[in-house]
């Protein structure tokens, strides 16, 4: 019974990792760009929400909604004025620029908010739990997982049901031909990164409510996100959720055996998948 509980907790934790990963997966799918500052942007989002909650007394959920347009604008601007300039056949420039951005963000946050750990107060919600078939499940983890589902369903709808989604897929296939359709690839990339930042804000909300955070934790979130994307198979959103769940379960099971093994177990699960299925569990047919 204790194992069932552990695994369930792990699955729910996977929802958080899927939230970390969805934005990364979206951006990679459309422009083959890996943003090494992704984790730090999540932390930035958490600080923004924290600031709004502290200054205005808003509920964290409302604060996150308020933060979204700002984060969208940040992503849009970042892509348009910085990242678009380095996209191309050579992978080195975008990597190095986003790596630089990661260092800048971490240290700007350190300067602005100090190294003390913070938490977004969610009141009674953070300790509430409900019991299903004799197993107590935290409301917060359930909400997180539910949000991950909503985000992935929403992204799928966006991709397969809207004109913008078609433009995303067309640009991903062939930016030159897409421009013959009146699509401006640079604008599409900027919108995609903007949308990724909205997902980053949702991820930031749960990151900040569920545990303490400080300016240095971004890179580790990037790693979990990356592992989830690779396990799932590049470009598959449901795969990304599956990847998140695998990391989550590996971590909780590892921690149940020896608390020091939590993080290690997640990484080992990733390496095992990489060994057995180098293209991930749900690879896209065309690449």
């Amino acid at each position, binding site marked *: 019974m204790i194992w069932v509980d552990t695994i369930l907790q792990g699955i729910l934790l996977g929802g958080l990792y899927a939230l970390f990963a969805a934005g990364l997966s979206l951006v990679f799918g459309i422009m083959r760009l890996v943003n090494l500052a992704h984790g730090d942007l999540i932390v930035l989002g958490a600080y923004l929400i924290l600031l709004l909650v502290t200054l205005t007394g808003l509920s964290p959920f409302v604060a996150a909604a308020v933060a979204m347009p700002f984060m969208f604008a940040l992503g849009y601007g970042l892509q348009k004025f910085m990242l678009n300039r380095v996209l191309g056949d050579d992978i080195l420039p975008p990597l190095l620029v986003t790596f630089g951005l990661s260092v800048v963000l971490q240290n700007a946050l350190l300067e602005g908010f100090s190294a003390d750990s913070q938490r977004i107060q969610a009141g009674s919600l953070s300790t509430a739990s409900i019991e299903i078939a004799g197993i107590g499940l935290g409301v917060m983890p359930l909400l997180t997982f539910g949000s991950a589902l909503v985000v992935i369903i929403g992204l799928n709808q966006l991709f397969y049901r809207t*004109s913008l989604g*078609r*433009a995303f*897929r*067309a640009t*991903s*296939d*062939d930016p*030159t*031909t*897409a*421009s*013959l*359709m*009146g*699509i*401006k690839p640079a604008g599409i990339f900027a919108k995609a990164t903007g949308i990724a930042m909205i997902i980053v804000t949702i991820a930031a909300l749960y990151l900040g409510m569920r545990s303490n955070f400080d300016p240095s934790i971004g890179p580790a979130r990037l790693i979990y996100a990356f592992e989830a994307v690779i396990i799932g198979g590049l470009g598959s959103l449901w795969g990304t959720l599956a990847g998140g769940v695998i990391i989550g379960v590996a971590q909780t099971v590892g921690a149940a055996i020896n608390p020091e093994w939590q993080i290690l177990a997640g990484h080992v699960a990733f390496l095992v998948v990489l060994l057995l299925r180098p293209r991930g569990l749900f690879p896209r047919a*065309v690449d």
Partner: protein
Amino acid sequence: MTALLETRGLTARYGDFQALFGVDLVLDEGETIAIIGSNGAGKTTLMRSIAGVLRNPVDGIRFEGRAIGDRPADEIMAMGIAMVPEGRKLFPSLSVEENLQIGAYGRQTGGYWSLETVYELFPVLKERRSNPGTALSGGQQQMVAIGRALMSNPRVLLCDEISLGLAPVIIKDIYKAVPRIRESGASMIVVEQDIGQAMAVADRVYCMMEGRITLTGRPGDLSREAIHDAYFGAQA
């Protein structure tokens, strides 16, 4: 009266390699012109220049009197110049219908062409509408590429070798669509290697060789010899 579309002394280069040397071309409203020439003559380069995929000196290309040579492809398309690119270039992640829909992404002016009228023009596409665009036969893919360009109700339609790699019967089928396209009000530039086909559809013909226009005229006025010389270079 100003021409609908005009190039003046148009040059184009790929890095150090110059592909066009001062091309002058005129397309009047309602007209269909054909561009013929052997492999490597620069026909595709000319189409890509007009469509904005290659950037040119601003004065090299005029559309309704406006200099547009330096405008990017998405703006050119929004003005009403659509292209059926060489090799069809369908989007593999999009279904047939989505490939058609995306053709109107940057220009939704309304007009004769819509999903219904395109399906009327090429009925077979309606049956295959939910297949991936790339799962179709070559001829059907070419129909999708033409329909996709028509979806924006273009003023000018550029067709780059729509007969490439297709069987003669299929080519005939596809060219049957041309009168309907002209009736809808689009003017056309048709690039063709098949001289007979070009002569049959065009009001005027331009012949290109090594990045230059070597001959132009009405199909009836051009002799076989003149075309042969313009095509392969005059034997001294």
